[in-house]
């Protein structure tokens, strides 16, 4: 794992225009993600985690004022890339996003199979037969039977829907998947089984993950490294083992102390 980083983010900042003036959602964040590594971005609500993910994927809301910093992905400098080039070369095919509230990220009037195939049809123009074969493959990978391809999203349980959304992110075989709170609306068992599925994918396909969450317990399942975000800045980036056992920053310590345990020491 000592090879050169897959994603390198240098001094990334995102500012929004609001009625009360400018808001710095992401404020000079620098980090890197190595191939086949899972970086967990922890942080409380509103600290800029989702803005970070959106800035990386270039799906920012309309009131964005300024995006600064440098992002390079593999050999490509993403900051210098124009929108069309980015759409064709990087977006979804190399870097995919699992949206927040992804339980609702499925179009209710489109069958699951068609929906998962949609990125392939949009980006690569695949015919539906070829796309379906790939969809069946990727659904199996996330633990959904391909029999569900003909169903509508409302016929699936929350956990299944979540798996389908992850399948949608994986369908174009990206090198990096950004998961924005993928399990926040699910029960603990489902969370654990989805985390296991992600772990398996990481091991088998060598996909890198950026897992954005506020859930310390769940994130520890997958994390190789942890970045703790507070008020738009990374206050601590270190090894998962170090972070969960002896956090350095006072905020990290407070956060770790807030995680409920069976017997409070």
């Amino acid at each position, binding site marked *: 794992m000592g090879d050169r980083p897959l994603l390198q983010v240098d001094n990334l900042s995102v500012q929004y225009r609001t009625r009360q003036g400018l808001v710095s959602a992401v404020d000079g964040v620098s980090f890197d993600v190595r191939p086949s590594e899972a970086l967990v971005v922890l942080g409380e609500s509103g600290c800029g985690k989702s803005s970070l993910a959106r800035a990386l994927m270039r799906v920012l809301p*309309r009131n964005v004022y300024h995006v600064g910093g440098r992002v390079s992905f593999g050999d490509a400098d993403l900051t210098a890339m124009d929108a069309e080039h980015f759409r064709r070369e990087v977006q979804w095919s190399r870097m995919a996003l699992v*949206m927040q509230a992804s339980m609702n990220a499925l179009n209710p009037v489109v069958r699951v199979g068609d929906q998962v195939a949609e990125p392939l049809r949009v980006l690569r123009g695949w015919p539906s037969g070829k796309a379906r074969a790939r969809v069946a493959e990727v659904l199996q990978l996330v633990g959904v039977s391909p029999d569900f391809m003909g169903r509508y999203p409302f016929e699936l349980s929350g956990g299944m829907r979540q798996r389908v959304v992850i399948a949608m992110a994986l369908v174009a075989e990206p090198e990096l998947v950004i998961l924005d709170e993928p399990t926040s609306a699910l029960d603990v068992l489902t969370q654990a089984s989805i985390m296991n599925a992600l772990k398996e994918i990481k091991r088998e396909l060598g996909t890198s993950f950026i897992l954005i969450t506020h859930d310390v317990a769940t994130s520890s399942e997958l994390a190789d490294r942890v970045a703790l975000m507070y008020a738009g800045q990374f206050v601590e980036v270190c090894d998962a083992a170090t972070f969960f056992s002896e956090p350095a920053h006072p905020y990290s310590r407070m956060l770790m102390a807030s995680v409920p345990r069976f017997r409070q020491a």
Partner: protein
Amino acid sequence: MSRSPRTGAWSDAWGGLVPHIGLLAEPESEGEPQVREGRYTLLLEAVVFDADAPLEAELVLYGRVHGIAGTDHQRRDLSLALMWGTPVTLAFGLIAAVGTTITTLIIAAVGVWYRGWVDAVIQRLTEVNMILPMLPILVMVGTLYSTSIWLMLGVVVVLGIFSAGIKMYRVMLLPIREAPYIEAAQAYGASNLRIVMRYMIPRILPVLIPTFVTLIPTFVFLEASLAVLGLGDPVLPTWGKVLNDAQSQSALYNGYTYWVVSPAVLLMLTGLGFAMLGFAMDRVFNPRLRSL
């Protein structure tokens, strides 16, 4: 009593009957006119400018009013006009409804998706267009330009593009624009056109189909009103034109109620039929209404 058809008042001479019946009828007969038997002489006076000029004359006598729908003042079978009017009327209603609904829907979705000045322009155009009265404009076009039914159809569709429906569709599309799956579609790089046509519009289609069906009779009635006002297509037979003929021949005054009733009943049946279909479809497509 000396009976002279040329000098006496018509009503007096033919017992209140129109000339082509009264001429051969028994004058004193009560109720149904009876044929007066006897010899009739037909005198033809013609002025010709050449001794060898041909002259063709034909006397056609109709025994009675025929056809299930009766005949009109020119002895044309009304059932033919009513039957041929059906496809014309339905085609007009259907094409106008399809044309206005689809264009309106696409324009509303485009405005919602692109927001900003695109939306503002579409909304202002709609508001201006909502004030413009449709029927007087059509009457103007028919009077001054052409009464071709296809031209009328074109004008109806053009005026219908920026109709009040845009406001309704916009309200329905606004929450869909913010749906997470639209955001996800942007994230995997779906084009604007694809988002509008494949993701946004299909979401409101189920609600739309019943509205669309109930819209068809509106245009059927519009076409009929134009024809009643004398702006029907001169070539095609329509229900409205039958009504127009009936009116110009004072059908009701003369007691020919069938002439007015049959096209009117057909119009009402069409309207009722589409309305019922629309209500039924509403229940199928909007399950929330089912308990009502």
